[in-house]
């Protein structure tokens, strides 16, 4: 007999070892998320995927599914809080969408569209963050980093290179690379590495691939992130 959880009134089956996020994704249900990517070990830092389980808020990407869980996901209160978190991510960095190559393909932007973000709401921090163009094939623009550690996980767990890491703490947290010089060009990162492909924003971009698809015809110009990530109308 299969086990089930209830998400927003729907019965969703799960297998032992799956998280709430896994079960939802398998059932084609969308829970907004940024740091989660089913190819990697769950991280739980962005907190956009927070759901309410039997009265308590938890990150669905790290919480194991268990019989008896009544999960609230697509409700106004949680979506308002997710919107606030998304706005926080926008103001703590420097996200200038019109000038960003990732615009239209950016998950941060996709989530912001989905949640109906019409303004940053909070005052911008305008932090001074470093751009690293030292690598011949890859650009690292820390202005757009949201500390999801997908590149860290990909480089460590898939590429076996440990190119990325985080240092400092709190609002001063920053992405660092595995080189004495601190420069991406002095690391072993290759454009074909998984780590160079997984950034949900435009913090890591493969060079010389600019504007292959014109703005206006990109993923989130045509589809919602919900459709894309649940396979609803994937390209």
């Amino acid at each position, binding site marked *: 007999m299969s086990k089930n959880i209830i998400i927003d009134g729907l019965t969703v089956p799960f297998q032992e070892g799956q998280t709430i996020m896994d079960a939802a994704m398998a059932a084609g249900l969308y829970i907004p998320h940024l740091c989660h990517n089913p190819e990697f070990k769950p991280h739980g830092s962005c*907190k956009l995927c*927070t759901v309410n389980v039997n009265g308590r808020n938890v990150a669905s990407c790290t919480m194991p599914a268990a019989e008896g869980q009544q999960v609230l996901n697509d409700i106004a209160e949680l979506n308002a809080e997710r919107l606030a978190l998304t706005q926080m991510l926008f103001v703590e960095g420097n996200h200038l969408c019109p000038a960003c190559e990732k615009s239209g393909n950016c998950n941060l932007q996709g989530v912001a569209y989905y949640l109906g973000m019409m303004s940053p709401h909070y005052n911008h921090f305008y932090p001074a963050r470093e751009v690293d163009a030292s690598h011949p094939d890859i650009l690292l623009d820390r202005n757009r980093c949201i*500390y999801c550690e997908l590149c860290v996980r990909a480089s460590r767990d898939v590429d076996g290179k440990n190119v990325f890491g985080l240092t400092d703490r709190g609002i001063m947290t920053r992405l660092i690379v595995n080189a004495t010089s601190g420069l991406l060009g002095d690391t072993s990162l290759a454009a074909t590495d998984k780590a160079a492909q997984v950034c949900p924003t435009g913090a890591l971009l493969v060079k010389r691939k600019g504007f292959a698809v014109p703005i206006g015809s990109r993923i989130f110009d045509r589809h919602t992130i919900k459709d894309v990530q649940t396979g609803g109308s994937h390209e």
Partner: protein
Amino acid sequence: MQQFEFSDISRMLTPILARHGGDASRLLQVLLEVQDACHTIPSEAIDHIAAHFDVPRVNVEGVAGFYSFLSTRPVGEYRMLFSGNITDQMLGKDDLMQYLCNKLWVEPGKVSEDGLVSVDSTSCTGMCDQGPAALVNGWPLTSLDQNRLDLICELIRSRKPVAEWPPMLFEVVDNIRRSDALLGEPLVPGNGIRAVLTRGAKETLAEMDKSNLRGRGGAGFKTASKWSFCHAAIAEEEGSVICDINGHPERYIVCNADEGEPGTFKDRVLLNSYADLVFEGMTVGARVVGASKGFLYLRGEYRYLLEPLEKGLQKRREAGLLGDNILGKAGFSFDIEIHLGAGAYICGEESALIESLEGKRGRPRNRPPFPVTHGYKGRPTVVDNVETFACAAKIAEKGGAWFAAMGTAQSTGTKLLSISGDCASPGIYEYPFGVTVRQILADCGARDPYAVQVSGPSGAMISWKEFDRKIAFEDLPTAGAFMVFQRKRDPFQIALNFVHFFAHESCGFCTPCRVGTELQKKIMDKIASGHGTASDLEELKSLGHILKTMSHCGLGSSAANPVLDMLEKFPDAYERKLKELAFEPAFDLDGALETARKITGRDDDWAHL
């Protein structure tokens, strides 16, 4: 500043690395020694250390950047860090720090041009009963005043090594003002363990259960439950049980002495004068859960206690109370290792503490799994507060019923309170649970008390209307901090101090806490500078809600408490600060034109708003 050649680095590192061996869990301990030797963590040293432990460079740099007492940029040869708790501030910390800076010709937060000295603030150093306090190269300075700073100035200018400074500068007193069951009657070392060996481990767990002892770190989880979960858990790898050297399933006992909550200093006193009681409790725990290794995680601010504690451990080993075959019991092996923290409040959170013990950034883990099943290096681990272990030792000796007879039904036993602020006799007070705030205020000689911060910034601020409330898990739960404020104090300034503390101590892992604590700080700063409006209050409330409901751990979920308490209980404290205008610019418009006026050399009416 001194420049380091690579060969110097290598020469400096070789003995340190040799002493710590090759296990990467020693990384933080190594970095602390490097910081001591070089007044920074040089980039070349990071390469060297990474190669030694065979870990990526980013991991070492990540740890070096995480902890406040480590620094990848040089700090002064003499590094003065003033304790920034509100109680230090009330005792004149800001003026004293400025006084020292003026005398030494150095700006706060910067290093003097000759690299000799740097002066900065740090989070509470746990000396609130004898502030204003500071640390010089990690060693605590207490009861600072201008005279003492004059002397310190001379010592720094004459480049006198800190070890040769007059001992009176470093005098730390216990200030035990009220003793009860825990502090009143000293334990004969070994009596608790003897009782366990006579009674049996299972029977001791039953006594712990009967005592209804709850964790003294504030959360109040029942200790017997934690111990029995840990005892029931087994770590497996590829189908086989991971065992210790004696063939028993590997488990760990960890004592959380990362007493970072501003206003708390009871663990300092327990470790200074009752360390045997604490070690005894850890050993009792080890016997009950079946652990052979224990750690004491000592906050960096209490580094001065390291050598005395090591000596205490050695004495216990010699007395057969630690090591192999404890008190002659064959197969009962347990030893304790002390691990130093390095200035990170978050490491008081048990899973962050375990990460730090493993030599990593102190980032709270995703739970489940919980440490009782997957703790240190993935093994079942009990993490308990210093005071909890002290209680456990007493319960082992005297039994659960003796303990349960004290306090209230839901909060048995006694509680150590660290009392500071506006009172005649700050210090340690031990009370049976259930004591009223009013009683405590009378006993400590509080002067015209108006508000009390119970359990530090993450706890609750209560007003004079609530002084009949009780210290107990069912009313006012507390880890021990009790800061008294008299009427003339401004609740807004108190909340402002705490808000800065949380923003500084957020680990930065999750969005709500990383950004939310910073937003909270910015808004409070804006109100403090006279630009606050009514909408800022709404913003603070909504931020508070997000912090409480969306954060990864207790730091984030309690970070809004000071602000929300102030808004609820002391509304006039912030209303006074607000502009009465319907519209108030978020910054000083006229001030913003100052640069333009300077450039154009104008100062006429039209150049002003």
